[in-house]
């Protein structure tokens, strides 16, 4: 009996809380004030933009190599000679690899940082 009374009281309170919802508020220029306060939009980059850029750069490099085959071969040969002419010890190789990794991670971090895929 007491439990039933408590349940009824709960139902009554639920009903009152729902009936006590605030009435709709008229705009009265609020939206206009908000729109006036909005900062200029910074366009979000489309998701396909970065892979598309990588593909375009790769195509450009391949195109350049194919259009100037002699120059490309010369550059490759000279690069190889330069590389093999330098005596490289294991510690030097390790330092070079660490340096290369740092550079790559820095570039990756910079490229993927949140500001480039904003928020507006």
């Amino acid at each position: 009996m007491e439990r039933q009374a408590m349940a009824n009281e709960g139902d009554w309170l639920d009903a009152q809380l729902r009936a006590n919802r605030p009435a709709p508020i008229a705009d009265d220029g609020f939206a206009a004030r908000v729109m006036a306060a909005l900062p200029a939009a910074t366009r979000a980059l489309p998701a396909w933009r970065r892979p598309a850029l990588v593909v375009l750069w790769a195509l450009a490099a391949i195109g350049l190599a194919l259009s100037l085959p002699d120059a490309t071969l010369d550059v490759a040969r000279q690069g190889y000679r330069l590389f093999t002419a330098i005596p490289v010890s294991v510690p030097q190789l390790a330092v070079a690899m660490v340096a290369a990794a740092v550079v790559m991670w820095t570039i990756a971090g910079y490229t993927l940082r949140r500001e480039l895929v904003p928020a507006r």
Partner: protein
Amino acid sequence: MPSPQAPDDRVLIARALATSDAASRVAFGELVRRHQSSVRATLRRLTNGNDALADDLAQEAFVLAWRNLASFRDEARFSTWLYRIATNCWLANARKRKDVLLGDRGEDVEHDDDDEDAMSALGASVGDSSHATSLRMDMARAMRVLSDGERAAIVQCYDNDLTHEEAAYVLGIPVGTVKTHILRAKKKLKAAMADWAS
């Protein structure tokens, strides 16, 4: 409420993100007009009827929503996401004044001078019978007995019709804490409204 022909929130959000600046603003403006009432009403409740502060916080919330629209995911409704931003604005403002806590402490809060003004405004609601007006005023008074966390939970679950899970997302607290707030709030409200219930 959008009319049946009006595009839904997702379409407007997509337009706001993918179109030129002018068209983007038009789409976002529609979202503001569509949700301003519920966001402002929520903040008015949370600020204990301080309409000016509530509107300032609502404006801040919409500007933040505009800035972060690209981070909106369909995991929540747009309105729920807005409530979360608005609640965070209210919390940030209240923290400056160091007078709000959403934690499970069950503490009471001090009432400010806006309370009586809000009561008068409530009593002046056009079209209410004196009985209904008295009931609404007593309910509003009873709401002021609640702690900030309890009131915020009641506002989200009853005024905004959110589930406990959605309210937890909006308030940034565990679901269990929301349920505790609701239970405590109802207990206090029952005690405060005992004369009406009997």
